[in-house]
């Protein structure tokens, strides 16, 4: 990836409006779980492990996508409240329908109490300090630079003091991976975004968080950076 093409990719991302991103995910909602299974499921499991006990807590997942992690969170929080949000009402509808179908079929994995709604991560409809833990996977890389800071500040606002932020983003990897990711991000910015892994610690610390742990989890050749931070 040359500097010129990186700049071009960044510019395309800056032009990407929230509405376009919302429309992209509304349309791809029925198929999105395929990419979760291929690239994200291992990182989802790991981030839940790293979160520690969730039972009885108030937990938020921002950008639930097709709901694979949300399902794990419900399993781990049978007595608390698990809230899931996504910018795309279509995506939220898919997750809600799946959970209802599973519950109707007596599927034992649907357990805890879940609340779902369509929400903009930059302006969330929750009071200050409400959540014990906040999960967010594969979102920051899709946002224009100015919105990354606003979103992380919003994460900080809705978490209680001492609350944990569990973050997953595409990891920095070999030059070949970074090159391919760069071009994929140029072609379909709503899906691939850009690599933010190197900037994550600085972004979080700037937003008031303390980074406690980070590691790379690879699946199908796709590296994910898993980060745990405290408010």
């Amino acid at each position, binding site marked *: 990836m040359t500097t010129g093409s990186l700049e071009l990719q960044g510019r395309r991302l800056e032009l990407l409006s929230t509405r376009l991103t919302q429309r992209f995910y509304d349309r791809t909602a029925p198929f999105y779980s395929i990419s979760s299974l291929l690239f994200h499921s291992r990182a989802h499991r790991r981030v839940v492990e790293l979160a520690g006990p969730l039972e009885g807590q108030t937990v938020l997942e921002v950008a639930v996508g097709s709901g694979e992690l949300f399902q794990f969170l419900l399993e781990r929080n049978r007595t608390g*409240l698990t809230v899931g949000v996504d*910018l795309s009402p279509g995506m939220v509808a898919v997750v809600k329908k799946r959970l209802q179908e599973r519950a109707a079929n007596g599927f034992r994995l649907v357990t805890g*109490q879940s609340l779902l*709604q369509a929400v*903009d991560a930059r302006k969330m*409809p929750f009071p200050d300090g409400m959540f014990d833990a906040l999960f967010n996977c594969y979102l920051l890389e899709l946002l224009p630079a100015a919105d990354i800071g606003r979103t992380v500040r919003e994460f900080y606002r809705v978490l209680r003091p001492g609350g944990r932020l569990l973050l997953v983003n595409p990891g920095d990897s070999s030059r070949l991976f970074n090159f391919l990711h760069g071009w994929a991000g140029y072609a379909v910015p709503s899906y691939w975004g850009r690599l933010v892994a190197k900037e994550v610690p600085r972004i979080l610390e700037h937003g008031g968080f303390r980074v406690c742990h980070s590691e790379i989890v690879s699946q199908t050749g796709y590296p994910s950076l898993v980060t745990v931070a405290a408010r």
Partner: protein
Amino acid sequence: MAISKELLDILVCPLDKEPVKLTEDGKGLKCAKCKRVYPIKDDIPVMLVDEAKIEE
């Protein structure tokens, strides 16, 4: 119409963080301060400022 009490208890207006209340027809959540009504579509609250309408 099945918006749970737990959800109503926690939701606030994303703009001014005031509590929202269910509208009389049950099709939206209204902020008393800015008068924005956030639609409820298929039982899913759409808490997006762009999708809200100001109703006096």
